[in-house]
C-alpha cells in the first residue's frame, strides 16, 4: 500500500482555530467499528458537520471550498488524544494532504506521515498569520521544506526528518524498508535469545 507522492502543492487553506483538537473530534469513536480504511472522509469532524438528525450544519467543512482544499490549519496542539489512525485516514479521505499547526501531537504526526499526510509544525508568528487569513492560497514545498504565504506573509522553513520526507516524496511505505532488515532482525533475535 503506497501513497501518492507529495512534493509541492498550492492550495486554499481551511482553518480550524480551536486549540487541542483531539482525534475524538477528527473522527468520533462510534465510527471506529469499520474493518476497512476507506470512506471515512464523510465522517471527518462528524459532530461539527452534522446535526443530531444527520442533516448538514453550516460548518465550513461542508462547503465546496473546503472540500477542494488540501491544506488544513489547526490550532495549537493538533491531533492530541487517541492513537487511532482513523484520524489521518478520515483527513486524507476528505482530501487533505497537509496539516499545519504550532504543535502537533506525536502519535498523530507519526500516523499522518505513514498515510501521505504531511504534518507541519510552524513557528508561532506564521501560525498566527495562517489563523488570521483563512482561505489564503498557501504553497507547501516539501523539497525545500518551506511554506510560502501569499502577499508579504513571508516564507517559513519547517522541519521534517529526512526519512519521513523521503517516504512522502517517493510515496513509499516503511514496511518495505523494515522488510529489508529481516536478516538484522533475525541476528538480533538470535543474539539475545528472543
Amino acid at each position: 500500500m503506497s501513497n501518492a507522492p507529495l512534493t509541492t502543492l498550492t492550495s486554499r487553506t481551511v482553518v480550524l482555530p480551536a486549540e487541542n483538537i483531539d482525534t475524538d473530534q477528527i473522527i468520533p469513536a462510534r465510527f471506529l467499528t469499520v474493518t476497512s480504511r476507506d470512506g471515512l472522509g464523510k465522517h471527518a469532524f462528524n459532530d461539527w458537520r452534522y446535526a443530531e438528525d444527520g442533516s448538514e450544519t453550516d460548518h465550513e467543512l461542508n462547503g465546496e471550498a473546503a472540500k477542494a482544499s488540501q491544506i488544513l490549519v489547526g490550532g495549537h496542539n493538533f491531533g492530541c488524544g487517541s492513537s487511532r489512525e482513523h484520524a489521518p485516514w478520515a483527513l486524507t479521505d476528505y482530501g487533505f494532504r497537509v496539516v499545519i499547526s504550532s504543535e502537533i501531537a506525536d502519535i498523530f504526526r507519526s500516523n499522518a506521515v505513514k498515510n501521505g499526510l504531511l504534518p507541519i509544525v510552524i513557528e508561532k508568528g506564521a501560525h498566527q498569520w495562517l489563523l488570521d487569513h483563512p482561505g489564503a492560497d498557501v504553497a507547501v514545498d516539501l523539497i525545500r521544506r518551506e511554506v510560502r504565504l501569499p502577499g508579504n506573509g513571508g516564507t517559513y522553513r519547517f522541519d521534517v526528518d529526512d526519512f519521513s520526507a523521503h517516504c512522502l516524496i517517493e510515496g513509499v511505505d516503511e514496511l518495505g524498508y523494515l522488510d529489508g532488515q529481516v536478516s538484522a532482525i533475525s541476528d538480533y533475535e538470535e543474539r539475545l535469545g528472543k
Partner: protein
Amino acid sequence: MASNPLTLFDKIWDAHVVTPEAAANPATLYIDLHLIHEVTSPQAFTVLRDRNLPVRRPDRTLATIDHSTPTLKDEDGAPLYVNAQAKTQVATLLANTAEHGVETHGWDSDNRGVVHVMGPELGATQPGMTIVCGDSHTSTHGAFGAIAFGIGTTQVGHVLATQCLLMRKPKTMAIELTGELVDGVTPKDVILAIIAEIGVGGGTGYALEYRGTVFEEMSMAGRMTVCNMSIEAGARCGLIAPDETTFDFLRGRPHSPEDFDAAVDQWRKLTTDEGATFDKIVRMDAATIRPMATYGTHPGMAAPIDAPIPNPANEADEKALSYMQVTAGQTMAGQRVDRVFIGSCTNARLEDMRAAANILSGRTVATSVRAIVVPGSESVKAAAEAEGLHEIIMASGAEWREPGCSMCIAMNGDKAAPGELVVSTSNRNFAGRQGPGARTVLASPETAAASAIAGVVTSVAGLAS
C-alpha cells in the same frame, strides 16, 4: 557509580535497538510484546494478507476483545452488540488471530479484559520490555519498568510482519514528587495534578519517568493508573522503576518467566543510574495535591474538587467551560450529576472495585443518577464477585456489568445522552467522548462513588460531612 550513567529509559531503549538511528533513518526498535484488539488491527491484517506475509512472532503477540464488546448479555448469555458492524469487527479479530496462531482471549476466556488490564494480569507485561499496542493508553504497562507506547494501525502491521518499529528516540523527563500524600488522595488525583501542572502538551516528545517515594510506596494498580495517563500529558510513555512490589505482583502469573529468580536478578538492574541526566526535570510537592476533578474538555483542565474553577486563559478554555456548562469561580463540588462510570484501563482493577464498593457500601445511589460499574477484566470480575463486591455495588443501586472499555470510549453502545454530566474514572474528557454532547468529569473511583451517592460532584470528605 556507572562510568556512563544512564536513565532507565535509555537502558531499555539501547537493549532493543536492531539498527541504530541516523540522520537519514529512524532506529529499528525490537518489540518484545505486541498486544492487539479488534479496533486497530483489522486493516493491519489486511496489509499482511495483501502482501502474503505471516505474523513473524505469534508467540510475542497477545489478543483480546474489549472496545466494541457489549457489557450486557441477553437471557441466553449472548453478547448484545450495539450494531452489526461491531459484531463483525469482533468476529474479524477472532478470525485473524485464529488464522495466524495468536493467543487470543475471546468470549470463552476467563482472562478476557481491557487490553491494558489483561496484559499485566497474565504476567505478559514485564520489566525491561518494549511493549506496543494500537491504543494510546499502552503507556499503562510502563508501571512495570517497561517502555510501552501506543501505535497506529500501520505500525501494528509493521510489528505483526517484522516484530520491529521505526522510531526516533524521545527525550527524557523526570517527574519527581517529593514529600507525602495527604489522606484521601489517590493515584488518580496524583496524575491529574501532574497533567494540570505540565499541561496536555507538556510531555510531547518525552518519555516520562515518575520518581520519588510516593511512587515507590504505591501499589501496582496505582502505578498503572499513573502511567496510563502519561499520554494525556502528551508523552507517549511513562515508566516507573521496578522493585519488590513489581516482582511480587508478577510472581506466579501464567506468562511470568519460568526461572523467575533469574529474571528478578536481571530486573533489579533496571533503575536510573545515579548521576544520569534527564532532558528535563519537573518537581512537585506531593503534600499539595488534593482530590481532583476536571472542569473542562481536556485532562489538563483539572483542579481540586473544592477549588474555584480558574478564569479561562483563552478562547479554547472559554469554549470548554461553556460546553461543560460551568463558570469560572464556581467549584466542581456541587455540580449536578446524571451518570457515574466506574471502569476503564485507568481505574477498573480489583483495588478500584474495592474502593468504589467501600464508599457505596450501606448507601444508596441518588435517584437522579444512573451509575454503572464495569470491571476491567473477567479476572477482576471474578475476584470482585468472590469478595461479594458486586452485591454491595448492586445493593446501592449501581449496575454491575460485563468487562470491557464501555463508557470510556462509548463505541459499544454504553454512552451518555447529550448534556448529561458523567463523573467518570476513565482518562479522557474530550467533548463527545462519552456520547455526543455528553459532559465528562474525570475523577478517582472514590470520588465517582461519592458523587453517585450525593447526586452532585463531591469528594469522599464532602460526602462524610
